[in-house]
């Protein structure tokens, strides 16, 4: 992977030029960030053409808001990802049509293993590898320190945009249980993130 610190610095510089209405810089910013922002939006919305529509809104929003961006507020890439995520969440949460929920089945369908084992199996899957690749050291460490069920619920909500109901269906738990996993997980993250 290329030097992330260097890349972040470039994004910040490009963003500053975009704020001054430098269209060439905006294209460079787009090229440097579209694969990440598209990934965020596609993962949440599932439908590729819907994702492209929303991503269009995100980049127009980035252009319009760039003059209001302050490096004191957030890292440049975080700011961009926040905008993309927010647009996708708006689209997802405003829609009346239900997005198709993909319910993954564990390897041993007939296995009567308890819940935590099943969750632990899943935790070893793709979401866990994503978490391991998070650049922000403290965030990565804090997520790793959660109970597997809490981490899984938070990761599914964050990356895949699952609602509490969808989490309950996916993790095969009562609604109250998954709500508590999310709530407790976030409560534990806060003091850890504050360092």
């Amino acid at each position: 992977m290329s030097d992330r610190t260097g890349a972040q610095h470039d994004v910040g510089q490009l963003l500053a030029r975009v704020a001054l209405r430098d269209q060439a810089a905006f294209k460079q910013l787009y090229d440097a960030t579209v694969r990440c922002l598209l990934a965020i939006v596609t993962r949440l919305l599932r439908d590729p053409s819907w994702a492209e529509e929303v991503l269009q809104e995100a980049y127009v929003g980035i252009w319009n808001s760039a003059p209001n961006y302050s490096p004191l507020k957030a890292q440049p890439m975080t700011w961009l990802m926040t905008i993309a995520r927010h647009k996708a969440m708006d689209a997802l949460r405003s829609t009346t049509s239900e997005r198709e929920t993909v319910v993954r089945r564990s390897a041993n369908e007939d296995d009567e293993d308890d819940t935590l084992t099943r969750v632990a199996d899943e935790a070893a899957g793709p979401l866990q590898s994503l978490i391991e690749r998070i650049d922000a050291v403290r965030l990565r460490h804090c997520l790793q320190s959660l109970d597997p069920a809490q981490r899984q619920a938070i990761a599914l909500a964050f990356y895949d945009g699952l609602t509490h109901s969808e989490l309950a269906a996916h993790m095969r738990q009562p609604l109250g249980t998954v709500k508590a996993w999310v709530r407790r997980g976030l409560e534990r993250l806060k003091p850890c993130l504050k360092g």
Partner: protein
Amino acid sequence: MNYDRPELRDALASEYVLGTLHGRARRRFERLLKDDSKLQAAVDFWQRELVPMAGPLSVAAPSPRLWTRIEARVKPQHAAAQPGWFERWFGVRGLSGLAAGLVLGLGVMLIAPQMDRTADGEQQLPQSYAGFLQDTQGRPTMLISSLRRGNIVDIKVLQPIELRPDQVLQLWGLPKEGAPLSLGIVPAQGKGRITITGTSEQWLANVPELAVSIEDRALAPLPAPTATFVLRGPCAKFW
């Protein structure tokens, strides 16, 4: 529900950023967010700390068609259908004829009390610098004026700018070459004045553009802008 409790604020803010707040609760939260600075601070924290979870995500680049559509939407607006005289003073920016006339009128009113009389009794505006700043949507937002040999810069805000209590606006001259020059702190609404050292000619003779940034109240005025510009516009000689 009492939103004053920090634990509740935090619970809602974190679930809002995570995405598990939805439906009516989400809409109600967004309404509250508009005016509640503590709630905004809570959301700021979670966005800053949690959103980097998305860092490792990546896919193949989309079709070139997407960029084409984005580019078309951010293209600069066409020149105002306005007499060339206005464009000569204030350059090409998307301004409706009515707004342009209004702004010019306001600009003249601002410096009218100082009308001079020439030798044959005709009124004329004293030699001045005039600046006209717009926001990123092209809305006229701030008028600046200063007598050529004067050391006072007058500011008039046409539409109020929203600031947090810990923020101020700082005015900058953007010279043809070199770094922005700080002119001082300006108000976010109403009128104001800045006293500069030296004459405005010394400051503005080679400054074709002015800009305003939002800065930390405790640190401003700063020698260089730390934030990007929220207002920007031409500065012209009125003689």
